[in-house]
């Protein structure tokens, strides 16, 4: 079983220059790895740094120390030191991310938002749209909405567009930031099935799930982020 993601001794803090250079430590000595076909869940109380870890792993947050090794294009790349170009390539081909909130674009239809990552990987637009339609219907998004830009959708509808966008590709690593937070029971079950399918296909998944039921059904193991917390109150 391969290990497509290895995180070792990662430290992250924020320096708030607008508040007199106040340094806010977030996490320290984060070390774990992720195997193909497993779903690990980040655990711990809120504010402990779970979302920050996902953002570091996706390259949105820079880190102070440590390594984030990602198996990409036949080798390992340290995301912490990779060039922006390399990070974009890793995101395109290897590393997927379902964020909590959809960043909507003006005038782009929901189905095209979903199809985009596949087209970016060289798939024909028609094929990508067919696949997007399949995912959206599986997630019970009314077909009347597919051609509309998702800016005016409800929270749950936007989240389903976001999930479809994250699952349309076969990225080997998938980061999930509370993908089921605003979904009803039926759609939560669909997402759980989709995660199961991806595990079967050998994808390494790392997620944050506040819903105990969902967490219990998808998690192979829990990574307790409290152990890495650099904040004294949280660590206590």
């Amino acid at each position, binding site marked *: 079983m391969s290990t497509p993601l290895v995180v070792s001794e990662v430290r992250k803090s924020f320096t708030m220059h607008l508040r007199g250079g106040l340094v806010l430590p977030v996490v320290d000595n984060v070390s774990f790895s992720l195997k193909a076909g497993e779903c690990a869940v980040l655990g711990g109380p809120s504010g402990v740094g779970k979302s920050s870890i996902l953002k570091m792993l996706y*390259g*949105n*947050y*820079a880190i102070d120390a440590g390594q984030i090794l990602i198996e990409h294009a036949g080798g390992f790349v340290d995301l912490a030191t990779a060039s922006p*170009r390399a990070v974009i390539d890793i995101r395109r081909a290897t590393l997927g991310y379902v964020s909590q909130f959809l960043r909507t*674009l003006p005038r782009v239809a929901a189905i095209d938002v979903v199809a985009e990552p596949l087209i970016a990987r060289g798939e024909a637009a028609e094929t990508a749209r067919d696949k997007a339609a399949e995912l959206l219907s599986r997630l019970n998004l009314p077909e009347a909405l597919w051609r509309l830009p998702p800016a005016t959708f409800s929270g749950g509808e936007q989240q389903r567009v976001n999930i479809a966008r994250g699952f349309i590709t076969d990225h080997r690593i998938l980061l999930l930031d509370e993908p089921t937070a605003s979904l009803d029971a039926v759609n939560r079950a669909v997402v759980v099935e989709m995660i199961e399918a991806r595990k079967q296909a050998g994808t390494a998944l790392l997620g944050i799930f506040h819903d105990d039921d969902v967490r219990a059904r998808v998690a192979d193991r829990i990574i307790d982020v409290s152990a890495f917390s650099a904040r004294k109150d949280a660590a206590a």
Partner: protein
Amino acid sequence: MTAEQPLLKVSNLSRFYGGRIGCLDVSFDLWPGEVLAIVGESGSGKTTLLNCVSSRLQAQAGRVEYRMRDGRLRALSDMGEAERRFLMRTDWGFVHQNPADGLRMTVSAGANVGERLMAVGARHYGHIRETAVDWLQRVEINTDRVDDPPRAFSGGMRQRLQIARNLVTAPRLVFMDEPTGGLDVSVQARLLDLLRGLVSDLGLAVILVTHDLAVARLLSHRMMVMKDGRVIEAGLTDRVLDDPREPYTQLLVSSILQV
């Protein structure tokens, strides 16, 4: 493989206005298909940098090299005026903030789009007009406006026409100076969407000067933050905006109005 080599190499570029700094010691590479945003406040040197890189303004120090279509990297300063101007109207584009600076306001939209073709030797009226009509469609201008001068166009249409005029020769590198500045928000959204589509369909490399971080977020892969003529922070657009490191960048990011 040319795709694995930078399209543009900028090294230690400096420009002074008398004793004052325009831009100082700026270096970066730009790759094919990459969109680089240069952000900063008015007077931070972003437009000076854009003009120096695009050789509209002479830098006093440093070097700009460009990979020609034959794959060779050439210093712009080693080219003759004729070659540089030819490059600027074929393989490069320049989209001005004010469309009147980039258009011929008194000749028709069709001739505005066709000019670059005629400049490189197109001599068939029917073909030139066909191409112009095709480009008007691509930038969502009604084709029955092909014979109207841009004076009769709205601000958003003028800007879209300016983009068509630049893209008609299939350039590989386009410079944009606040392309959405001065437009209504709804017009701006439409233009941004159009630009996003064109950039990814045509695989354009773009250097985009903007003071609008939302525009930079939407269009760019990579970002450079300028202050007092210097690049103070650079990196992946998401990273710079989500985790700004420098005091000035934090100030810029924290000053964005939330809607």
